[in-house]
């Protein structure tokens, strides 16, 4: 249980840092695509007896390459192409998995994670990657901020918009790859968006947004694990569900305050 909690908190930290930029740059769809693109990689890795994470990394790289190619080639609607890319990768993953009868349990594990089965080695790797993600995000904070503000402004200011965009995608990929073992490829996306999104509703600064995201993610992990223990529900899914509920509660509270439905404080 303590391992699950630690894993969840590590996922919260890396997902909130990366998720902040995903939310601000409107990369949700690409994040989703990356999270799902990992599946066939993991499936192939298991099939040929390589660690799942290696396959996940390859899947993510293929996805980044595909997304970049699509964005460079098609001017009109890249979301259609990205959508097809990610559905294609998802389908490919399921096809690979379904071709082997021993895989059905693995599929559930890949998609929804195994928060309660995280090993100490997994945790160490997760901690290392989380620190790495934090360091890269710190170093690239200025170009990332400019990219969020206006990619052209970043380019004119001498920070290559394309290069830092790829760095950002790689950070998303790294986060997805180390997080999928605990919350799964389907659900890691929820941890990328929900805590950072709730933070965006509250914060007036990027740093504060990340801090709120980490706080919300940690709360979601703790409450989710508690609920899943008592209600005997899937741990990863319950955690993500709590995170999403937190987002909508924050949204509701903000709206109530903004529209003065319950004006309890008079300035």
């Amino acid at each position, binding site marked *: 249980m303590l391992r699950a909690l630690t894993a969840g908190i590590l996922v919260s930290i890396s997902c909130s840092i990366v998720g902040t930029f995903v939310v601000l740059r409107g990369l949700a769809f690409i994040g989703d695509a990356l999270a799902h693109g990992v599946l066939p990689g993991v499936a192939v890795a298991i099939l040929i007896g390589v660690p799942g994470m290696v396959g996940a990394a390859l899947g993510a790289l293929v996805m980044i390459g595909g997304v970049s190619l699509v964005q460079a080639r098609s001017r009109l609607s890249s979301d259609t192409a990205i959508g097809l890319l990610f559905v294609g990768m998802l389908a490919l993953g399921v096809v690979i998995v379904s071709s082997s009868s021993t895989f059905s349990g693995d599929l559930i594990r890949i998609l929804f994670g195994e928060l309660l089965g995280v090993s100490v080695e997994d945790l160490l790797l997760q901690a290392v990657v989380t620190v790495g993600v934090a360091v890269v995000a710190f170093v690239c904070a*200025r170009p990332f901020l400019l990219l969020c*503000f206006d990619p052209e402004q970043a380019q004119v200011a001498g920070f290559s918009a394309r290069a830092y965009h790829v760095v950002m995608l790689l950070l998303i990929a790294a986060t997805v790859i180390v997080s999928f073992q605990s919350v799964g490829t389907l659900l890691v996306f929820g941890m990328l968006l929900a805590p950072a999104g709730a933070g965006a509703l509250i914060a007036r600064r990027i740093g504060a947004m990340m801090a709120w995201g980490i706080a919300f993610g940690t709360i979601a992990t703790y409450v989710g694990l508690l609920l899943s223990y008592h209600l005997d529900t899937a741990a990863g899914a319950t955690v993500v569900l709590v995170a999403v509920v937190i987002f909508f509660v924050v949204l509701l509270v903000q709206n109530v305050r903004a529209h003065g439905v319950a004006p309890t404080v008079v300035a």
Partner: protein
Amino acid sequence: MSGPASATRDDRPGPSEGAAAEPIRATDLSVGYEGRSIVAGIDVTVRPQTSLALVGTNGSGKSTLLKTIVGLARPVGGSMTVFGHPPGASPRRIAYLSQFHASGFVLPLRAVEVVRMGRYPELGLLGRMSTEDHDLVAWAMRTMGVDRFCDQSLRSLSGGQQQRVYLAQVLARRAELIVLDEPTAGLDAGARETYLEAFAAELIRGAALVTATHDIAEAAEYDQVMLLARRVVALGPGREVLTPEALLETFGMFVRGAGHLGRFIVVERGGREVDPHGHIDLDD
């Protein structure tokens, strides 16, 4: 998109090498996108402490030319140098204000942080903001009259207030070449005066200024005016170039003026044929 030139970092012009390192020198330049030319045959030189206004309708090529100057679009033909180098090679010497800021509403950013971005090209990835940098940011915000919004979030400001914050960011750059795309969009009369004063001072400081504008009165004050209508209609000092005939050719519309230059009112007449002379009424 090409990265900054690495070989010659310190390419600031010495007193002897004036011509080679002019802020802008374009020879038979064609600008456009993806190899397709929008405006061809542009010959223009912008020297330090001088200004160039681009006047034309939407789609006339103004923004494309500006994007080419700052290195966001590649020249389609001819040649252009910016401080003696290809466009985009001198990011620390250029400030650029684009026409649209799509994400200004979403970002959890305070106004002061937007202005601080103006110092990023000098600071690089990890350079710390010095006292001088903070002073510049504070000065820029005071100059544009947005210092009282310092700690407010950008999204809580009105469109005109946001535009003034963006202009403060440009001032904080202390650039040698300032490129502005429709800077007065959304500004009220008072803010427009503030803007005109601030950027006239930038010229005196030594910067070169290139501005795309619909504001004929503003353009008339520039050292050079380029009238654009998918081609260069005219280029020269404002008072010579901004003739009723040239404006009609540029805008294809009805021009009514009260008094001399400086008080033109341009009225768009979409699609309707306008008699080139019958409807121009300069001295009523």
